[in-house]
């Protein structure tokens, strides 16, 4: 579904991505892990088109998308949950989701109130992520955990083929983390998911395969159990950050 | 166009460019340091010219006016920054809007104090003549403007590179908040920056007055040209102000000769080209368009 070949991106002299090659199959759930500064968020920014790469290419379902604008990639089915919450603060939860629902429809209706079906779809998604009853609350008054749930609902409203999750559980309480993990794990198996996450429990719970990014390169790639046993991975990351039983 | 005329127009262009540099340097400095585009810059320029008019009326000395106007404008800037802009620190757009209000007040007050008819400032004695250059007579004052602009650029460059103040300015343009973290009194630095910007606008007003006269609307022209210069040259850098003025001055002058009433369309074309192909301006680092 996603093929990344020799992707490079440097900032000044710093190589944030130094030739990343990665293939994620249809319906696969792939975690990208690595220490801070390994290039994970840069990788996501290049995948969504927010940053142009300095080299390499990206394919989505076989189609070359390296030069497409972010909104064109979104229309092709690429959705993203940001690490830092990116919502429309004064709009209600329902309107936040409805914006994503309507994005597919375009050209946008003018001079008439939004169709009811749009809000119905939004409400259904809000219920699915556990925000039933919060439809009318402005995004800015939601709790951190609720905002992350709303982010997920917004991304799902895009009806994506590929979902990029950038630390979906960052800053969440253990209970909230468990719930959002449950939620992600229960998503349609046809949906391809790429997830960046520091919480190894979440990674091992959600991912089919894991890619380890270090200094802008993929240094290991394998199933969850292969990665657990990989010595190099322990050296650069797991050994220092988390104990893996 | 004959070679003599071409040469004269080239000098005119350079002279206008030198004036634009004096004008734009202040705008660019304030933006570089404070991230504020001072939309009262044209009003400051206008006020400088009128202050000079009064000084010349009372003392008869252009040179005294050339010193007094920047001092007066500097003092005004030194008052406006802490009184108004400081309260909106960090809200750059609102600070810019505030300068619109300042401009409205200043221009209205100028009209009340000095009247709204066209006035003129005589050329200073000694610079009111002409010289013969390449087969044509040329006004000395315009050569003086070129020399003054070049000298000012040199002085600013030396201050930038060789003094502690210059070091602070360069660091501030890079990241003004970091200066605060390093223990620099940014309140004082910003007030001073704004004052120097205002003083430079006032200086440009005095220099321009003998050539262009004094009239309502001169503030808008000055603001427009200084904005074009910093957009074309690049915001916040001395080099950008120089490059912008050296390009816009002659282009505008030749545009007026060749296209008369559509000269501004040439300027429009330059701005459009820069936006499309070099969104940072020629020598800038700040992108003004995505």
């Amino acid at each position, binding site marked *: 579904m996603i093929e990344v070949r020799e992707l490079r991106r440097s900032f000044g002299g710093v190589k944030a991505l130094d030739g990343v090659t990665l293939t994620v199959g249809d319906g696969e759930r792939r975690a990208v892990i690595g220490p801070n500064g390994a290039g994970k968020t840069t990788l996501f920014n290049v995948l969504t088109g927010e940053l142009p790469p300095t080299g390499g290419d990206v394919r989505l379902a076989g189609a070359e998308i390296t030069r497409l604008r972010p909104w064109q990639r979104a229309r092709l089915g690429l959705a993203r949950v940001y690490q830092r919450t990116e919502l*429309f603060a004064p709009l209600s939860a329902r309107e936040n989701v409805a*914006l994503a629902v309507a994005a597919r429809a375009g050209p946008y209706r003018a001079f*008439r109130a*939004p169709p009811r079906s749009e809000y119905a779809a939004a409400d259904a998604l809000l219920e699915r992520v556990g925000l039933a009853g919060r439809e009318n609350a402005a995004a800015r008054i939601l709790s951190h955990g609720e905002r992350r749930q709303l982010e997920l609902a917004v991304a799902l409203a895009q009806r994506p083929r590929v979902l990029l999750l950038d630390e979906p559980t960052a800053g969440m309480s253990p209970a909230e983390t468990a719930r959002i993990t449950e939620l992600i794990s229960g998503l349609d198996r046809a949906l391809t998911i790429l997830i960046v996450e520091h919480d190894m429990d979440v990674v091992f719970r959600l991912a089919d395969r894991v890619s380890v990014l270090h200094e802008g390169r993929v240094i290991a790639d394998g199933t969850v159990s292969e990665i657990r046993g990989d010595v190099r991975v322990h050296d650069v990351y797991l050994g220092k950050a988390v104990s893996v039983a | 166009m004959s070679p003599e005329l071409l040469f004269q127009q080239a000098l005119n262009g350079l002279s206008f460019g030198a004036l634009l540099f004096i004008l734009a340097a202040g705008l660019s400095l304030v933006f570089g340091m404070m*991230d504020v585009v001072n939309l009262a810059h044209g009003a400051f320029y206008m006020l400088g010219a009128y202050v000079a008019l009064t000084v010349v009326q009372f003392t008869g000395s252009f040179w005294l006016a050339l010193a007094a106007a920047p001092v007066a404008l500097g003092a005004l800037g030194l008052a406006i920054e802490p009184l108004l802009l400081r309260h909106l620190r960090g809200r750059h757009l609102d600070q810019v809007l505030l300068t619109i209000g300042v401009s409205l007040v200043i221009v209205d007050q100028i009209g009340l104090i000095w009247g709204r008819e066209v006035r003129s400032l005589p050329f200073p004695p000694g610079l009111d003549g002409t010289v013969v250059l390449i087969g044509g007579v040329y006004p000395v004052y315009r050569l003086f403007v070129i020399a003054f602009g070049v000298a000012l650029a040199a002085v600013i460059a030396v201050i930038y590179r060789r003094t502690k103040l210059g070091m602070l300015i360069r660091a501030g343009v890079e990241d003004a908040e970091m200066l605060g973290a390093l223990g620099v009194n940014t309140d004082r630095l910003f007030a001073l920056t704004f004052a120097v910007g205002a003083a430079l606008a006032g200086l440009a007003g005095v220099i321009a007055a003998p050539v262009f006269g004094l009239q309502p609307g001169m503030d*808008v022209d000055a603001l427009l040209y200084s904005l074009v210069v910093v957009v074309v040259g690049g915001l916040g850098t001395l080099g950008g102000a120089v490059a912008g003025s050296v390009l816009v001055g002659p282009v505008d002058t030749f545009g007026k000769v060749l296209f008369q009433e559509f000269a501004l369309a040439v300027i429009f074309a330059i*701005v459009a080209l820069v936006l499309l192909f070099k969104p940072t301006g020629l020598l800038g680092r700040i992108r003004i*368009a995505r």
Partner: protein
Amino acid sequence: MTRAARWVALAAVAVGLVTFPYWSAAWETSRFATTVLRDMLVFAIFALSLDILVGHAGMPSLGHAAFFGGGAYAAGIASQRLGTDQLPITLAAAVLVAALLALVIGLLVVRSEGIFLLMLTLALAQIVFAIAFQWTAVTGGSNGLAGVSRPTLFGIDLSAPDRMYVLVAATFLVVSLLIWSLMRSPYGRALTGVRENERRMRALGYDTTRLKLSAFVVAGMIAGVAGALSAYSQRFVSPGDAGIGTSVQAFVMVLIGGAGTILGPVLGAGVVMYIQRVLSSAIPVSETVLGLVFIGFVLLARQGIVGLGRAAYARVRAP
């Protein structure tokens, strides 16, 4: 108040507004009041159109007078050159020219934001002013365009002051309703999305550049309508109509009244026109007063009169 009651009240206000010259006819000041109110409503339309950009889409523009002036000149020139006073023809000319200008300027500025957008709109619009000021053969140059004829519509001559007023007031109502419905539609909501978080909108699949450009053109067209109304009302177009003074005037109206609302720009137009047309005959420093009022709102009440009203209402309701 129920929904229905609110509509009835609004309709009553609307009818009262349109018929103002008739029910105020007995007043001594009726003629003057009608003129001031007419000019205020012209500027209310103009300010409402600017607020589409400033308040709704988050695109602060200081060049909106280019479209107002463009519309005014187009209406005036069309009526003179084509020798017609048919409202549909001259108004269409105004809207078309304003739309074209907005498209050209918009294409260059929509990739910029905030302060940069402000600078660029100011600079580019001033070029429209310069053309109006200098292209004497077509625009009348610094003398302006005199003798613009008042329009006729369906054979009705609108040149009498009270009829001219009715045309302006009715157009104002139509434009307000139009903008109101536009802003509550998915299109308006998308503009709000752009204002709040353009990057996220792109990630959702919105072509935000096109959205912003379309907002620029729509706002420009409505400003063109206001410009045409100004030309008919004054029977005169001045290059100043396209100049920065006019842009600043509209911006001040939007900010004083309250950006991002329908009522705000209208109230702002009222306040500014009061200062400029009524107060100015009493004191000589009216522009200074306007500048100080504007500074006061930017410093202390950035949400404008509507924001102040909302805050006061919230305080009354929550004891």
